[in-house]
């Protein structure tokens, strides 16, 4: 295992922990995106560029976007009540 891979693994561990400890959903969506980027770097360093690319589009685009949109929808419903 190279030093870079160790750094990437440590970043992923730190990122995952940060996601768990972020309690506010809006901030959590952003932190999840950053965590997804760390995961993509990890996959890239372990010579899986296809998986890294999927991780980038799903983890940093699709998932945060859906979470943000869902949050926006829920807030509208709250405002109506």
């Amino acid at each position: 295992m190279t030093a870079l891979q160790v750094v990437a693994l440590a970043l992923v561990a730190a990122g995952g922990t940060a996601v768990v400890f972020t309690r506010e959903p809006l901030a959590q969506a952003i932190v999840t995106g950053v965590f997804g980027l760390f995961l993509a770097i990890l996959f890239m360093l372990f010579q899986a560029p296809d998986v890294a690319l999927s991780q980038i589009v799903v983890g940093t685009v699709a998932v945060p976007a859906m979470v943000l949109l869902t949050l926006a929808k829920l807030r509208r419903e709250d405002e109506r009540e």
Partner: protein
Amino acid sequence: MSPRGRAWLFVGGALGMALLLAWGLAGVPGSDVPLGRYAGLLADHAVAERHTTNVVIATAFDYRALDTLGEEFLLFVAAVGTTVLLRATREERDEERAARLDEQRGVATSDSLRALGTGLVGPTVVLGVYVTAHGQLTPGGGFQGGVVLAAALLAVYVAGTWLALRHVAPVSALELSEAVGAGGFVLVGIGGLLFAAVFLENFLPFGTKGDVLSGGMVPLANLAVGLEVAGAFGVILTELLDQIVLRRSASG
């Protein structure tokens, strides 16, 4: 259950989990372990057999195309399910009102955000098409390219208004893209059935290694998946946005 009992249950569960995790981690193979037999076989033969320089795509869209077909329909069903759950009963009056309110939002969006969004649309579309079209050559393919294309829709919404998004990509066009993509992959499979006697068997010339149109049916299947994924994600995004915009207008 008393707080004390719950705490003990947690301690027991956490300990068991930690033990299982440690046991599992101890057995994880290192990163220098040679490939499994199937992986080695594909890595050795895919390029020569299928003329695709990206073995991952040759595996997903040729050797194991049936698995990909299943995965594609997984997303298709998810998008249809979202549509069924979210599609509000729209009335023209609501839509007009929402459009009016959304135009006001458009003015309220900061100029820098609009400039950034507008600037991102073109490059994102080009990147999406590139990633889809070069799946058989370099890492990427229809799935990744499709999501990138759908992300371009999001940039349109950020840069402009809900109306602009509806104008650029009407829901009907997205649904068409999704359906054509899903059906297209099955058609590629039926092509194999007709011309090569096996469902999803390659029936096209493999072409020259490294060309955009190499790999036999792989570029076609990639295109189908790209259309399907872009359509499916687009439909889910616009349904969610519709909900937000229409509801905002109903309450405002």
